Every structure is written in structure tokens, then in C-alpha cells.
């Protein structure tokens, strides 16, 4: 077990900057998730921690020790790959035992540890099979077992659930969380799936274009996004973002005027107001401050998503699942002003 620190880490592939001078600390035993869209540098960052990619600049510390130029085998980390990276010519038992075998653990010891780990991830009956005779979920378990069998300092997981079907993903998510909690090993987990990130993480690092946008607990990331990128990336359906200006504490945009508590007298041009669909309720016309005709309603089962047209913009609210409205009916949306966010229109930073 160990902490992981990245200091001014930078990776360039030719002229392309993949990770741009970022620093980050992962605490001992923490479950840290790197979240971001494809190509944001999250996997490259993880591969630099694993030692599979050498940083262009900066340093990687594991347990306080500088390992920037150490080989992967010298770092005592274990990794679960997106396509599992199982050895196709070995049985499940040999796959799990491989890290022990390489380290010269005696056969009897190896067998015992493999059996223990296999029991933990429910693989015991499959130990003699080859990976090709396993389902996706079973392969995932083998990869996990191989990672935990030698109790490394750090677990690295690179989108480990992305090849599984939706239902299995939910089950495996819970298993990973349970295992990590039981073993208490520092874990870094890369994903582009925000639900995975929010459910698994102690803390989340949101990345975009090689730059860390925000680091924080799932609550912080969700309830207080640091900038427009995080605000727009996290949440489904996405947060409503409305361009406008602040006039004497009131946010104004075409067809919209919203007095904001705590902003009394503030005046500022070019701001963006953000409000999540689930932080707005649907009311009859005239009851609230944002109103317009219904553009579309979408029944999702547990709710009805109501989109209205306001000026040239569209706003979405998560309405009661019994809400029934027709297109072009006039309705009003009433935002919960405690969860309304303001961003600088030019820099995108939270105000």
C-alpha cells in the first residue's frame, strides 16, 4: 500500500501534448477515478504510473519514492487492462499464478494463494480452463484475480468494465468496490463513464485535453463543478447552460430573468448560468420565473424529462413521472436556487 504522487507530469507524442504538466496526489488506500472523454490523457497518465509510458517531463512517486524511470516490474503495481490482457496459452490458474511465478514464489505457496484468490472472485471451478473458454465477465474476474494475488502497492484499472454488458457492469462495479474496500489497496481507475466514476470513487479527477479540470469527491464534482467543462460533462441529462448577464443580482437572458440569492447587487457581463434538470421542478404557467412552450417530453420510467423553449435556448427539467403535457403547452420551470451555478462566460471558471 502506498500513496501515488505525480509532479508536473507531462507526456508529448511528437507535437501532440497528451498530458500537460499536471500534478496530483492519491492518498494511501484511496480509490481515485480518472474521468474524461476519449483522448483526454487519462489512460496515458495511468500508463505513466504503471511505467508503460515514460513521461516527457516531471516525476512519478509511489510511496514517496521516485519511480519515474523504473521498469514496470520494479514498481510493485498491478494492472487490469481494458481487454484483460490474459495469457491465451495458459490456464486460468496459470494466469493468476504468473506474477507469483515470475517472482519466484514456490509452487505449493503459489497454488494455495491462487486457490484463495480464485475463491474470492468466484473462479474456483474454472481454474483449469483457458481464457478462450470463458465469458467476458469471467475473464474480467481472472484479470482481477491476477492483479490482487500478490497484494501490490497500487492497483491500476484501465476501463476494466467497458467490454461488459450493462447488467454485468453494474454487478462487477459493486464487486470491485467491495474488493477494494476489503483489501484497502490504493486504486487508480480510468473510465469515461461518469456513473462508474461517481459510484466507485473516493475522489474523482476530471480531465480534458491533457489538463486536470477538477479533483474532488463525487459530491463536490457533482454539486460544485469547477468550470463549464465539468458542469457539462457530469450529469445525465446534461446541465442546462444559459448564456446571459448579471444585472443587480438578477441573471438575465433573452426571455428569462432570475434573481439569484446571495448575489445581491452583483453586475457582470457575459456569464453562464448552469442548472441541472433534476434541480428544477415543472409547475403550471406563471408560478415560476422561467416559462415557455413545451418543446418535447421524454418519459424515462422514473421521471418525465420536459424540454421547453426559452428565447433561442432550450431548457430541460426532470419532472414528476406523472406529468403529462403536450408540445407547445405553456409551462414554467422553477429552479432550486441553492443549486444554481454561475460561470464566467470567457474563462469558463466557476464564479
Amino acid at each position: 500500500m502506498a500513496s501515488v504522487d505525480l509532479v508536473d507530469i507531462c507526456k508529448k507524442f511528437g507535437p501532440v501534448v497528451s498530458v500537460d504538466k499536471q500534478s496530483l496526489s492519491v492518498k494511501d488506500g484511496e480509490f481515485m477515478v480518472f474521468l474524461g472523454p476519449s483522448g483526454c490523457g487519462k489512460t496515458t497518465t495511468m500508463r505513466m504510473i504503471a511505467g508503460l509510458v515514460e513521461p516527457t517531463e516531471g516525476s512519478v512517486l509511489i510511496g514517496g519514492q521516485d519511480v519515474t524511470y523504473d521498469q514496470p516490474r520494479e514498481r510493485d503495481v498491478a494492472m487490469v487492462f481494458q481487454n484483460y490482457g490474459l495469457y491465451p496459452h495458459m490456464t486460468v490458474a496459470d494466469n493468476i499464478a504468473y506474477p507469483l511465478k515470475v517472482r519466484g514464489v514456490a509452487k505449493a505457496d503459489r497454488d494455495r494463494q491462487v486457490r484463495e484468490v480464485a475463491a474470492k472472485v468466484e473462479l474456483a471451478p474454472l481454474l483449469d480452463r483457458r481464457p478462450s473458454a470463458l465469458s467476458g465477465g469471467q475473464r474480467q474476474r481472472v484479470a482481477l484475480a491476477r492483479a490482487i494475488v500478490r497484494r501490490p502497492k497500487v492497483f491500476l484499472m484501465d476501463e476494466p468494465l467497458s467490454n461488459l454488458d450493462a447488467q454485468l457492469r453494474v454487478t462487477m462495479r459493486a464487486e470491485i468496490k467491495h474488493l477494494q474496500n476489503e483489501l484497502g489497496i490504493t486504486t487508480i481507475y480510468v473510465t469515461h463513464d461518469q456513473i462508474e466514476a461517481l459510484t466507485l470513487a473516493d475522489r474523482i479527477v476530471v480531465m480534458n485535453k491533457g489538463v486536470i479540470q477538477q479533483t474532488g469527491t463525487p459530491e463536490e464534482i457533482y454539486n460544485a463543478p469547477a468550470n463549464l467543462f465539468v458542469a457539462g460533462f457530469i450529469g445525465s441529462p446534461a446541465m442546462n447552460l444559459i448564456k446571459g448577464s448579471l444585472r443587480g443580482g438578477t441573471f438575465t437572458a433573452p426571455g428569462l430573468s432570475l434573481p439569484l440569492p446571495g448575489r445581491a447587487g452583483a453586475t457582470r457581463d457575459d456569464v453562464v448560468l448552469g442548472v441541472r434538470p433534476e434541480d428544477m421542478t415543472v409547475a403550471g404557467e406563471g408560478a415560476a420565473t422561467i416559462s415557455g412552450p413545451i418543446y418535447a417530453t421524454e418519459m424515462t420510467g422514473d421521471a418525465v424529462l420536459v424540454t421547453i423553449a426559452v428565447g433561442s435556448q432550450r431548457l430541460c427539467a426532470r419532472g414528476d413521472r406523472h406529468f403529462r403535457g403536450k408540445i407547445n403547452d405553456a409551462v414554467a420551470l422553477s429552479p432550486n436556487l441553492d443549486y444554481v451555478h454561475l460561470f464566467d462566460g470567457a474563462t469558463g471558471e466557476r464564479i
Partner: protein
Amino acid sequence: MNDSTLKWGLLAPAFLIAAVVLIYPIAQSFWYSLHDWNLSQSPELGPFVGFENYLRLLTADPEFWESARVSAVFSFFSVTVTITLAMALAVLLQGGSRLEVGVRSILVLAFSMSPALVGISWRFLLSPEFGAADALIKWAVPAWRNVPILADETTAMIALVLVDAWHWVPYFMLVFIGAMASLPQETIEAAQVDGARRGRIFFGIVLPQLKSVLGIAILLKTIFSIKMLEQVITMTKGGPGTSTATVPFRVYETAFRWYDFGYAAAMAYFLAFVMLILAFVYSHFVLREKR
């Protein structure tokens, strides 16, 4: 026209061409092998003798078995050397750097040369009078100063094996590079993270995954080695003595030097039979891979 007629109709030209250019000569040479026919005595096909030529081959021709031994020695060493060097170079040159790609391209030039030309070039290069390679070898290994490379039984065979390897290594190197490129990179990275060193990764992770490609390469090269003729003709003419006279060379000599067509055809058929067996093994490998 129904489907079945159309199908056969479309295939017919291909069958016809195959029949004319493949089946007819094959059948004809088999027919010759059943006759005692010496072209120097008569342009007409000689008397039918049944399997007498084959009997002679199997029971009464020690020279043929000597050439079979030479072929076996040549094939064993040329396959071993070629495949080992090709794999080693594939590992060295599998990357995509400019240097690696450049060296790869230069090496492939050797394969693009015709085998006869390869033989002639090396015969010149190894000439004791003016050969550059000969001079280099003698400078590097003073003990061989008085050995005429292509006129000594051992060194002539070594030269034949190495020149054959020189010609074929680039081809199999490309085959292996292709095979390695198609291996899942994650298995290698997983082994790195799991703690294995480079040698262990190659022998424990990479090579086992290349098993079927390697098997096919060995079988293919064995077939190529068994039927290799051009370099023997152009470099050693089977000599000194009969020390490099392989089976194909004996077939060639028997047919085109002694004009004993019937017997040469029988020898060629025997060789073809051996290669047919190998081809069966080969296709078995390929089919098993697909299953």
C-alpha cells in the same frame, strides 16, 4: 440457367486451365516414370516397365540415398538457421522507427533477388581469386586462409546453407514481424507489470502465442529447402564430389545431363511424395488453427 449450372459454368475455365497446365504435365511425367526412356537413345518414349524405376530407386541406387542424405543435412541446417535468424531479426526490427524500417527494407532486397542470381552473386563473392566475401572471411578467420570455401566439402555445405538463409531470412522475418504485430499488446504489457523481464516475456508469452505461425513457417521452409536447386547449380554444381548434390540436383542431372527421363521422373515423383506428406501436415496445421 439454374444456380448449379451457372456455378460450374463459371468455374469451368479455371478447371480447364488447371487441367492443361497442371494436371496434364503431372500425369504425363508420372507416365514417363513408368517407362525406360533415355532421350539420348531415342526421341520416342521407351518401353513400359511398370514400377521398375521406383524399385531401382529404392533398392539399387546408393547414390540416390547419398543425395537424400545431403538433402536432409542441407534442409535441417537451412531450416534451423533461417528460422532462428529470422526470429531474432524480427524481434530486433519489429519496431516502427526509421532505422528499423530502413534496415527491414534493405534486407528484403535479398529476398527479391531470383535464387539463381543469388547463387551466381555469391559464387563470385566467395571466389578465392577475387571474391570480397572470401577475402573478408579469410581476414577474420586466419585458420581458413588456405581453405577454398566452395571446394571443401564442409565449407561448401556451410556456404550453401548460409546463402540459402541469406535469401530466405528476410521473408520469414517479415512473416514473424507480421505475426508479432497481431499479438495482443496487452498480454506483453500485462507481463511487464506482472514483473517479467524481456527474455522471459519473449520465451514465456510471445513465443507460445506464435506457436502456430512458427510451425507453419518451419514446414514451409522445409518444403522450400527440400526442393532447392538453383544455388546448387550456380554455386557448387553438387561438388566437391557429390558432397552438395541434393536430390533435386540429381533429378536435374539425371534428366538433363544423362537424359534418363524415365528414372528422373521417378526420382522427382519420390521427392514430390515426400513433400506431399509435408503439405498434408502443413494444411493440418492451418486447418487446426482455423477451428
